[in-house]
């Protein structure tokens, strides 16, 4: 593989993300990794469901009182939109349009950062109400599940930013195209997990 090969949108392979063996390996390996991540989150969800609303004698915190759907709704919209913008970025990757790809990734990162900002606000708010990490089994399982997701968002942001900085001068090639691609896969995965958190934690918490 040669980093210096120059491509045009016409000569750029249709599936740049897996047109080399290294790319193909990354592609398959990352899908498998996401399979493992799925069981990781499944375990956290199960733990949360088992411990939801459980606490020491006379605990007053319940899902109904705690969660505020409007805030979570905004967060959901931010993250869903950021998934869409990362699709645009990959669309431009496929068309060998480096600048547009970086730009859309930039927007993705901003949306993701906004999401994270809201999440920090939310956590902070709970802690101030007395619902801190060691307050109850409920609080521990809530912060661990949602916090693990938040950590994934943070890692995803860092990953995007490093990729964009590292490649800003040299543009796309068959070595970094798979990297962009799997980073965006990761981002979609995070988004899907959030959809489950939104449903299982927040919606079922308030309505169920």
């Amino acid at each position: 593989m040669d980093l210096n090969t120059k491509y045009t949108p016409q000569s750029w392979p249709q599936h740049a993300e897996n047109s080399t063996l290294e790319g193909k390996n990354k592609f398959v390996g990352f899908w498998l990794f996401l399979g493992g991540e799925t069981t990781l989150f499944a375990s956290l969800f199960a733990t949360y469901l088992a411990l939801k609303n459980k606490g020491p004698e006379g605990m007053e915190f319940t899902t109904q009182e705690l969660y505020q759907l409007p805030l979570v709704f905004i967060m959901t919209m931010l993250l869903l939109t950021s998934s869409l913008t990362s699709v645009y970025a990959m669309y431009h990757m496929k068309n060998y349009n480096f600048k547009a790809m970086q730009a859309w990734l930039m927007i993705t990162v901003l949306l993701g950062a906004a999401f994270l900002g809201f999440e920090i606000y939310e956590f902070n708010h709970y802690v101030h109400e007395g619902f801190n990490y060691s307050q109850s089994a409920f609080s521990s399982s809530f912060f661990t599940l949602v916090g693990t997701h938040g950590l994934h968002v943070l890692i995803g942001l860092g990953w995007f930013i490093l990729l964009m900085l590292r490649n800003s001068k040299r543009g796309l090639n068959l070595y970094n195209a798979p990297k962009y691609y799997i980073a965006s896969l990761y981002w979609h995965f995070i988004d899907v997990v959030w959809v489950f958190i939104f449903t299982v934690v927040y919606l079922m918490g308030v309505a169920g």
Partner: protein
Amino acid sequence: MSSIAQKKGFGATLWDYLTTVDHKKIAILYLVTGGFFFIVGGIEAMLIRIQLAKPDNDFVSAGLYNEIITMHGTTMIFLAAMPLIFAFMNAVVPLQIGARDVAFPFLNSLGFWMFFFGGIFLNLSWFLGGAPDAGWTSYASLSLASPGHGIDFYALGLQISGGGTLIAGINFLVTIINMRAPGMTYMRMPLFTWSTFVASALILFAFPPLTVGLFLMIFDRMFDANFFDHTMGGNTVIWEHLFWIFGHPEVYILILPMFGVFSEIFATFSRKRLFGYSAMVFATVLIGFLGFMVWAHHMFTTGLGATANAIFAVATMAIAVPTGVKIFNWLLTMWGGSIKFTTAMLYAVAFIPMFVIGGVTGVMQASAPLDYQLHDSYFIVAHFHYVIVGGTVLGLLAGLHFYWPLMFNTMLDETLGKITFWLFLIGFNLTFFIQHFLGLLGMPRRVFTYGADQGWDLFNLISSFGAIFMAVAVTILLINIVKTIAQNKAVGRDPWGDGRTLEWAIPQPVPFYNFKQTPLVRGLDTFWIEKQEGNKEGMTYAEPVGDIHMPHNSFIPFVMAFGLFVGAFGALYNGEQAWAVPVLILGLLITFLSMGTRSLKDDLGYHIHKEDLMDKKGGKH
């Protein structure tokens, strides 16, 4: 690096191994480290048997006894059996599928070093205030109450080495999916490759629940979380579920690859095609699948209710069906074959009755009502040693003799090998068969001593006596290894004369790039086919000689794993020592900076040029 003529200094060799990304050398690293931990775990086992040899013994205290059994189990499963299995997977699978290396050589090295440092970290607990003492299952109600740092060593050490295992699992999956030589369809893959594939899939889905369980335990112990504390609404049974959702697949991770090794050995030394190949593949996949549906058979007495117990009992019994399919296929492979009783074959033949005994007791335990009697008694100890020693360890010993010439181009002494075999087999049965009856007589597992009036003296003495045989057997094995290395007599390609699959077709010593030309696989047992047709080279090629792309060696995996090791000390002493937080940050910095170096510095590898390959030496490094 490839030629034996080159003699290198100790320093250069050490550096080579610290930085290697070559699957063949990583295999040797796994073999040596796993072998070391096997000895450590073995010594712990001897201490257990000394303590139990007579009633009311005070050879070790109750507390120390708990530490010893915990470390024995944990070491044997995570630090001996699994790495030794990885040793064979690394040594054999890429060659068996006609690949030049695994899919991610760098990650392969990282996986090894994470296992290495995780294992060291766990064992340092002996010197730093005491080892974990809540059993290898570390049930939360015990472990949360355990004073000192033992449990923290357990949780953090397994977390690090478990990460390495997960990496190795993904690596083998991708290797097998993407890197098979042309013609090697899924249904032409040798059974060792198939079983590696399925075991890796089990690793992928079983280790994350353990990761979560360990994190919850770490959080409970270190950050005052309340997952397992019922006064705060927590529930200790959650740990049991998470642990066994991992734990039961884990026992199949331990046995399936050995099923693969035995399948290769039966076919090779019966000089016959494996009987029922497709049924074998199907059974392997089915066992892997069912392995995820049965975890609650470890929790029959927890109180999950009759319905849950019934479902898990039936699911557990169902696994006996594909397992039986395999047993019959092995028997029928030998049927009518022209059998050669090498040491490896002896192990394989002995494995069948041993594993059947373990399987039968397994099905007994699977009937939930009976398990109320058997649970937590020595019957369970007998069961799992029949499957793990009678299955996995016999498989590892068989594999050691069988694949030794492939890895080192020399052959272990067959006479010494057979002596080891008989001593080990006799000792194993002496030690563990009688434990079934100890269990039925009511002796609970994990007790540090028993009274003289309980009627368990004689059986325990016999059991301890048997252990001596196994210790002698392993000692002879070590002598055998030293002798073989000292004599260093090269045996060349296809040393058994009856190799059937690609790994035996390759010249010895194996060139560092494995295959000069990618082979074309023309059927199941492709080497056998070529030999039958009189092909002297043993391979048909899929491509002309061309440049070969190779990855660079790298020290980064070592440093990354070392960073986690350092950081773990910080995490462990957090809140107790002033230096804890700085050390934690330092460790993570080491890891993340080396990770950063890795991703910022493009490492595209290098090419061995065609011209270098053409001259006889097979290219220089």
